[in-house]
């Protein structure tokens, strides 16, 4: 069963979500769809991993990536 996670673009950087999908490619089949104002990740076929845990871990990773990238770009801008 596939799980959809919607990441609001004003809170999650689309690049960060894409980077997270790349990082999780070994654990599940992940498709990324960018819509107006949001990035949607569709996670399926988690294999041995529990889907709920995969979804939560994916969301955490996307948030971490977003924060790190924002801080990095703020540092480069100053």
């Amino acid at each position: 069963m596939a799980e959809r996670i919607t990441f609001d673009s004003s809170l999650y950087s689309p690049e960060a979500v894409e980077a997270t999908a790349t990082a999780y490619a070994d654990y599940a089949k992940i498709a990324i769809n960018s819509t107006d104002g949001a990035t949607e990740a569709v996670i399926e076929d988690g294999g041995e991993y529990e889907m709920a845990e995969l979804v939560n871990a994916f969301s955490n990773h996307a948030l971490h990536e977003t924060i790190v990238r924002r801080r990095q770009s703020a540092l480069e801008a100053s």
Partner: protein
Amino acid sequence: MAAKKGAEQSRLGFTLGSDQVSFELDESVYPLEAIYGACYLFLDRCYVYLTRPKAESVSVRLTSQESADTEALDSLAGEFANELLAQALRAKLSQSTARIREYYTAAALRAATSAPSVDDLLAELESEELLEDPLEIMVPWEEKQGDGSESKDG
């Protein structure tokens, strides 16, 4: 900070779900950078998911990594709220002291660029005539004052 109406609320007023707690934040009170700062510190303790229910508002959902009761979830959200307040205050202080920090950094950099090098200091030391003693500091007291017994007797 607000909980959803109609949903089960914790002692501190957060919305409770299965192993998760959520609350809404007003971005005019808690800037996004403060929210990110608090989230960053909680990423290793729980699962954090952000949504935007309406403009200028951020909904935070904290899901415990293991099974948690109401008390544990309330405590988790309470700690998050405290951290959020600390981050918001830190951001505000950082903003209000930005100019003075820039001034001190610029002054320190200016001083560093105009400071003499080690070679300059050594050259300066060598050029000084260390043996000059206009105040006769190196002259023994007896030589300056003559024999001590004469001066005592007058």
